[in-house]
């Protein structure tokens, strides 16, 4: 079998930090080759070396058997290597075609020949079943469609080796299935694919072989069909991974959070939470399952005071907290791991230490008479960084933006859990994280529960809700359609509930709700 790409003994160093150490990756023609590793293991570095963004300190790269030096992305493009970035590089108010030709516009007598380009885009789109309208504006199309534009961009430039960098991170389950089909179609047409991911499910489904790297070291390459998710997870993390987190039976006590007929509107004034009732007790984890956009965000924002409540009542430990200021609510014992860590959870341009003090900077012992004791800030932060294994370049002084997503999330979780709140709200706490980090976070949530605290978990992942919760409340169209126990239900049943079919009605005659 011939190799289209061989990266042999690649080493890349940043200062004293070795990001890639003696990594070998060989891509066969016509295969989907997964590159698996934890957040910060060095996957992106390796691909940036292949794409010419970094120069390796050691090792050789061969493309179709010939040794090459890839000094910049243009060289990579010429060699037929194309990258579909995790964060799309598209101009929002340009059309699909304009975006695709950007940087290599075909010209006719000094003007851009957009018609020909559009035809070419159309043809490519049809060939690979991408279903993209060449004249649509980027801002008007879905995230999944934007990703296809990125794929088209590489194809238009003549790539036959495609690198997908965490392509499913921002896609819906439906879009993920479609992407898998597109990848298979690309292979049929003779392309080769490197898929960077830490999602084992996708690897098992679509890849032919897997190369695993761990902390910058190449661990080895296995054939997917001869492997299992458990084996891959072990290779990636370097120890046994428990997919199902062990936990003792819950011991629910007094009610901590009580929500009575809550109604909340979104920014446009449309009711997103409708007459919702929910109870969370001390010593239990209540998981809210549901498809994105069924009122979860509005519900959390209402509890934490970030959004005004239109109607209804929220009480914490028997005291009403409806429409109080966020700080008042935080101080009455609520911890909040926000859904969007970049938007709400962190000030990305602050040093890590500052961010760990984000909820406590104004209080003793950190501050006194309006003056902050940064020694104390960093002392507390170092403690949390160590306990929660937050990895960063320069410890408390690292600019938070420079940390990987998983480490940013661990910092937030450390900050919120260490305040020891009576109610911990965890919204999508493991989004975008690898199995090792997920396991860690789940264990922390269960620990809080075992310490007699109430935990409210919001997640779009069924596995997570089933695994961690003691009770599952399914949210649909702004209200809790049903409450079930994880051991008494199935994924199938939950799926039906999440789609809005109440179980009783379903067994009767499948009648529609409302």
């Amino acid at each position, binding site marked *: 079998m011939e190799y289209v790409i061989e990266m042999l003994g690649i080493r890349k160093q940043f200062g004293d930090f070795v990001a890639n150490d003696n990594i070998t990756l060989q891509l066969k023609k016509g295969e989907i080759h997964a590159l698996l590793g934890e957040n910060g293991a060095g996957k992106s570095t390796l691909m940036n070396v292949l794409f010419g963004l970094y120069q390796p300190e050691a090792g050789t790269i061969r493309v179709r058997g010939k040794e090459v030096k890839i000094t910049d992305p243009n060289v990579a493009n010429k060699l037929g290597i194309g990258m579909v970035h995790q964060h799309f590089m598209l101009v929002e108010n340009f059309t699909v075609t304009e975006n695709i030709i950007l940087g290599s516009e075909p010209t006719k007598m000094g003007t851009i020949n957009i018609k020909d380009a559009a035809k070419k885009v159309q043809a490519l789109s049809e060939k690979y079943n991408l279903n993209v309208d060449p004249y649509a504006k980027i801002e008007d199309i879905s995230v999944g469609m934007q990703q296809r534009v990125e794929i088209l961009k590489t194809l238009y430039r003549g790539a036959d080796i495609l690198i997908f960098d965490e392509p499913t991170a921002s896609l819906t389950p439906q879009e993920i299935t479609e992407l898998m089909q597109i990848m298979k179609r690309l292979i049929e047409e003779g392309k080769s694919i490197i898929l960077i991911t830490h999602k084992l499910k996708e690897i098992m489904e679509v890849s032919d072989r897997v190369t695993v790297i761990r902390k910058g070291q190449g661990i080895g390459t296995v054939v997917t069909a001869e492997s299992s998710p458990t084996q891959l997870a072990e290779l990636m993390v370097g120890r046994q991974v428990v997919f199902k987190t062990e936990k003792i039976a819950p011991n629910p006590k007094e009610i901590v959070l009580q929500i009575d007929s809550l109604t909340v509107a979104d920014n446009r004034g449309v009711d997103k939470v409708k007459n919702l009732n929910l109870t969370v007790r001390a010593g239990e984890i209540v998981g809210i399952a549901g498809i994105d956009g069924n009122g979860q965000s509005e519900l959390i924002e209402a509890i934490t005071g970030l959004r005004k409540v239109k109607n209804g009542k929220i009480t914490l430990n028997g005291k009403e907290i409806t429409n109080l200021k*966020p700080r008042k609510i*935080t101080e009455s014992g609520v911890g909040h791991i926000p859904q969007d860590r970049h*938007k*709400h959870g962190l*000030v*990305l341009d*602050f040093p890590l230490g500052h961010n760990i003090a984000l909820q406590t900077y104004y209080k003793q012992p950190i501050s006194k008479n309006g*003056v*902050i004791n940064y020694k104390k800030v960093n002392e507390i932060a170092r403690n949390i960084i160590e306990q929660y294994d937050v990895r960063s370049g320069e410890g408390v002084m690292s600019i938070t933006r420079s940390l990987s997503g998983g480490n940013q999330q661990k910092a937030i979780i450390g900050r919120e859990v260490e305040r020891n709140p009576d109610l911990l709200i965890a919204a999508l706490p493991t989004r975008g994280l690898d199995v090792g980090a997920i396991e860690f976070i789940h264990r922390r949530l269960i620990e809080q529960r075992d310490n007699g605290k109430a935990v409210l978990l919001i997640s779009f992942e069924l596995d997570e809700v089933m695994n961690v919760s003691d009770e599952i409340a399914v949210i649909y169209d702004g209200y809790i359609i049903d409450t079930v126990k994880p051991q008494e239900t199935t994924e199938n049943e939950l799926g039906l509930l999440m789609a809005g079919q109440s179980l009783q009605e379903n067994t009767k005659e499948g009648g529609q709700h409302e």
Partner: protein
Amino acid sequence: MSKRAVNILVPLISIILGLVIGAIVMAVSGFNPIDGYVALWNGIFMDSYTMGETIRQITPYIFSGLAVAFAFRTGLFNIGVEGQLIMGWLAAAWVGQAFELPKIIHLPLALLAAAAAGALWAFIPGFLKAKLQVHEVIVTIMLNYTAIHVANALIGVISGGGERTDKVHESASLRAHYLEAMTDYSRLHWGILVALLAVVFMWFLLERTTLGYELKAVGFNKNASEYAGMNVKKNIILAMVISGAFAGLGGAMEALGTFENISKLHAATGIGFDGIAVALLGANQPFGVLLGAILFGALKNGGLNMPSEAGIPTEIVSIVIALIIFFIASGYIIRVALERFGKKRKEEK
């Protein structure tokens, strides 16, 4: 190349490049660049008088630079330093001449009035931004023009129809015989000490207080600040007000020190606008602003000497000074060039 060598080389090369290009401009225009630079040097350092004047010139730049830098650090773009400075100038001049009080009360009161007037003028864009999301750049630009005309009208009222207000009383003046005598009767005044205090104050406020923490957090990320329980609107207004207070104090330096009064303005003073460049030169750090202001003030004051001593017209002087500042500000380009150069050399080896 080691990091330290780069750090020393960058500013050095920038200044030399600026001087060389400035020399070419002078030579092409038919003037002797050496004479020109000697005149510039003399205009800054020749004797105790010029040095006194140079320091005097630096003082208001420190304040306008701090005002712009403070706004930047808290996520705001205050283009209205000019107007806030004029209002501060007017307020200080009025308090200085309208009351008769002991110095220990009068001088602080005049300074306070200047800070308050600048703060008030900055409150308007701050309030509009916080409550109605009106962009502060538009409001502050327009308020610069408003400030000039409002000040001119009020000068007329205060002076009973005159072109300028009366001199401030001795009790409100920053002037000191001691300093003047020491510098051969330049207009050097105590304002420089107030300015140095302001530098330390800004550093302390931003880097050591909870208020500074909040202001920076709101500037970087409003959503996260709200999540952390901060009052975002209050902090936006406060950031603008503090920035304006710095600007107002800059005006007080002119009102109580340099001129001891205020005259009707035909155009902007330029100090506020130069503050933007000073802030950027200083990377929005208080001590950086101090260095930026020293550079700006020294070149400005030294340049005044070039027409008289070397016969170079003021237009050419402005170009030369602008070039020097331009090259210092573009140190980044030189840094990149040096790193490329160092890399190539390493590869060749």
